[in-house]
């Protein structure tokens, strides 16, 4: 399977693009020309347009937009990667558990998942934000991770119930292996593909959700540079200083696009049936 994936040119290209975005984001401390939170010159550099010293201009507090964008992307990617780790692990575990337990447990779990999926994600996060006060990085990762696994659990459950998986299961069961062992050693490797696709698409989705939350003022506390919060801060004077809003938005689009493209190319590479057929 890994060989198939690396063999696909579109997967390699998407992986390369994701690698570049991640490298740029995590090199923020070295690439940033300024301290992202430093008020450079409240008089001269208040919403100054792009220039040689400030390629993306400065914001209302005379902070360098490029530096803030770089640091903000690092935060977004960190949050998204960790949250996806949480959500994919949880989703896989719940999906497998529902399948292993079967019967009433399966039904109740899946109804709860239906219920969770019915609550629009942002509203669910608003409920949580209303109930818990201080959101730091760990809390944000926990909240996003714990509210993003519902879809994955459905995908995993559907995959283990699929005909393809059933053959492996039947074969393993005929060898007298226990259900849990079958689940972890035989089923899991065979559904790794769809999980990988879900994870890749999940990174993009969580970046968007996190940006939305911080846009609403419910993300990491200021002055931490966050792409969504930058857009929110720039909204009121967007006509005078569009760069404050445009730059973080473009970065979000590019980052999400890279991970969507990665997910789509993985899906295509993993599913020979979709050859030539649009996904």
């Amino acid at each position: 399977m890994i060989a198939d994936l690396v063999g696909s040119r579109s997967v390699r290209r998407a992986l390369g693009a994701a690698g570049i975005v991640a490298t740029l984001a995590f090199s923020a401390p070295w690439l940033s020309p300024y301290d992202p939170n430093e008020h450079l010159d409240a008089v001269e550099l208040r919403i100054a347009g792009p220039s040689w010293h400030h390629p993306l201009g400065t914001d209302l507090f005379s902070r360098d937009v490029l530096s803030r964008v770089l640091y903000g992307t690092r935060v977004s990617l960190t949050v998204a990667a960790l949250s996806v780790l949480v959500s994919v692990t949880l989703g896989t575990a719940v999906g497998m558990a529902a399948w292993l337990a079967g019967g009433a447990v399966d039904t109740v779990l899946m109804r709860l998942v239906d219920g969770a999926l019915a609550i629009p994600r942002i509203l669910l996060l608003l409920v949580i934000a209303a109930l818990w006060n201080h959101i730091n990085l760990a809390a944000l990762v926990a909240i996003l991770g714990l509210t993003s696994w519902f879809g994955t659990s459905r995908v995993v459950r559907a995959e283990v119930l699929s005909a393809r998986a059933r053959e492996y299961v039947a074969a393993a069961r005929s060898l007298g292996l226990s259900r849990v062992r079958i689940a972890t050693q035989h089923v899991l490797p065979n559904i790794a593909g769809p999980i990988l696709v879900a994870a890749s698409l999940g990174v993009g989705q969580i970046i968007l959700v996190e940006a939305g939350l911080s846009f609403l003022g419910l993300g990491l506390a200021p002055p931490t540079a966050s792409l969504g919060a930058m857009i929110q801060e720039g909204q009121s004077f967007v006509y005078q200083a569009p760069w404050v809003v445009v730059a973080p938005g473009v970065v979000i689009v590019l980052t999400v696009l890279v991970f969507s493209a990665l997910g789509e190319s993985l899906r295509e590479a993993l599913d020979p049936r979709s050859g030539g057929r649009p996904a």
Partner: protein
Amino acid sequence: MIRYAASRAIHAFAVVLAVTTLTFVLIHAAPGDPLTGLRESAYASPEFITRAQRHMGLDRPLYVQYLVYLGNLFRGDLGESFATHIPVWHLLRPAIPNTLLLGAAALLVDFTVGMAVAAPQAIRPGGRLDRWLSNVTLAVYAVPVFWLGILLSMLFSQALGWLPIGDIRDPIIAAAGTTPQKVVDILRHLVLPAATLGLVGAASTARYQRTALFDALRQDFIRTAHAKGLTARVVLLRHALRNALLPTITLFGLSLPVLFSGAVLVESVFGWPGMGTLAVQSVMRRDYLVVTAAATITATAVVVGSALADLLYRVADPRTRSPA
């Protein structure tokens, strides 16, 4: 059909029950309770707090509280806002139609634009236009809806001055205008938020619709339709699109949660007085009963909407009817 409708209704009811359970669990898993503020206050005696606790039923076992919560919900009693002491329902009631208006208009944009993009793609798959539009839809799919809203308002409202933004109506027209003027005013306020929300949705609709149309156009009956001398337009509209619309009905049900999520952000950008704006304001005031009520109501709307979509699918597809 009736049996299917009944089983679908039971399923929907179970899901709504799951939603209420989740919100209840969330409220109770949170640190503190409605009296936290009171306890920290120097003016509230311990006796008063105990009395308030009993009054609010917080001293009873959890399952009793859950049943009371459920009972209240189904009677339409959503509790009282902590911040304003107004019944939650009174706060939400004026916001609901505004959100529904925005959602309906956005869906209209979503599906019209989605289809219009998908049709030329499906007719010549792999062609230059198809690949170009595929890249565009993938990119739009990655656009944060609130960012698009800000850019559109900057362009069409601030730079060009074509459309108003902020609230749902102009206060002067609302006070002194004639009915047609008021309607036009609301529609003018609706254009940008609905376009923002609809365009982002249109990207996924187009991707989905392209596959559905692509599959439909490769069916044998399309060849038959050409062979009997129908015009290309009739083949596309009457034969291909009609079949491709069936999966789209399901997509409608699936897209509702995403639509409402986006609506919260778009309402915030444009100051649209809907449930999303109300929920965000309530979060700032820690007025959590209003937020959970908004979440419960939208989730119920989502569940009912998907159930209706499933039923509509049954009605629209003759194959699900009993053999003659």
